[in-house]
């Protein structure tokens, strides 16, 4: 990857092979494995995703390049055989993942892990003259302003007894 400072994963054991999940035409997932690193306070997302002490992230092939640009990402060889531990951690057996319902069920953690991966990445910064602000901080500030404006303009529900 050419990224300096990539740490080795804590547990380098290979992922179990799950051939029955391979080759799905629309997803074809691959596992991008993050080394154990700083806790970003995303434990809620991580509860269902921690696999033997690792953080893991699923991604579509089209997003793999973007994820691969992150210098703290360690890519495993692409292949659907690496999906098994994640599915198992989420509580669905690999056998159940064969049917369509279970297959759809694990799509939401894919989105969740994509968001988590974006939050774990180094932030982009915006620079206007002396003003320097990261995009996440700017989003939080704009969200607070939006909440403030909404609190002023949205009518407060009134008690029927007080209407008179």
């Amino acid at each position, binding site marked *: 990857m050419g990224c300096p400072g990539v740490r080795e994963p804590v547990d380098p054991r290979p992922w179990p092979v799950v051939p029955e999940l391979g080759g799905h035409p629309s997803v074809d997932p691959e596992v991008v494995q993050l080394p154990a*690193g*700083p*806790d*970003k*306070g*995303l*434990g*809620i997302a*991580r*509860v269902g995703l*921690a696999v033997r002490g690792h953080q893991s992230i699923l991604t579509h092939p089209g997003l793999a390049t973007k994820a691969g640009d992150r210098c703290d990402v360690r890519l495993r060889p692409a292949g659907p055989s690496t999906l098994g531990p994640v599915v198992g951690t989420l509580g669905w057996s690999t056998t159940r993942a064969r049917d369509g319902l279970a297959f759809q069920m694990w799509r939401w953690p894919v989105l969740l892990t994509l968001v988590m991966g974006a939050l774990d990445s180094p932030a982009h910064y915006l620079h206007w003259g002396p003003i320097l602000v990261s995009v996440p901080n700017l989003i*939080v500030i704009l*969200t*607070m302003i939006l*909440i*403030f404006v*909404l*609190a*002023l303009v*949205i009518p*407060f529900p*009134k008690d029927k007894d*007080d209407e008179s």
Partner: protein
Amino acid sequence: MTTTEPQTAPDETPDSAEAGNWTVGLRNKFFGTYPPEKLLPGRQPAYLSSWIYVFGVLTIAALVFIIISGLVLSFEGPSWYHTSSVGLFTNSVHFWSVQLFFVFMVVHLWGKFWMAAWRGHRALTWMTGVVAFLMSIGTAFTGYLVQTNFDSQWISFEAKDGLNAVGIGAWFNVTNLGQTLLIHVCLLPLVLGVIVVGHILLVRKHGIVPPIDVEVPAPAADPTDPATTEVKS
């Protein structure tokens, strides 16, 4: 058969017996300032029917979540909240409660600033809110320092240089985990809790500030309550 003389003279009333008793004086002062109907009012002025007045109590609600999750974290320790699912969840509840606490508090601050909430002898209420805000920043900062992960290492070593630059690094050593942990879990929550309780009591004493353009009629029921007697000049 013998009789016992009473301890007090017949003309001595209970009030005179309690004269000079500091506990009685404190009780009379507190309940004189905060009668139950003012401490826990059943009705509020009509101008409170706005979402902007909700963010104070939302801030307190988030603080309750922070304290409860923080108590659990302090009892179980890092070996639990870094490794187990429940521990990670509790750690996240603590973290995200802090984020919501600050969002609610900032919106509360904006609302009070733009309605000049220091009007009507409420300067001390405003100042305790300011101090609570600053103390909260310090508490959150020490919280980031005691996460016991790479993030806290990075933050502490960056902060170390800043604190050394202003000359207090030797007194407040952010790389000293024991010192920072005690400050975070003992000192600052205690001080912040006292300030927040004082802030709430002052709000109860003076009443919630009305909007600037609202004329509040003086009710006959409680003419001594500034919250209901303030009339815009």
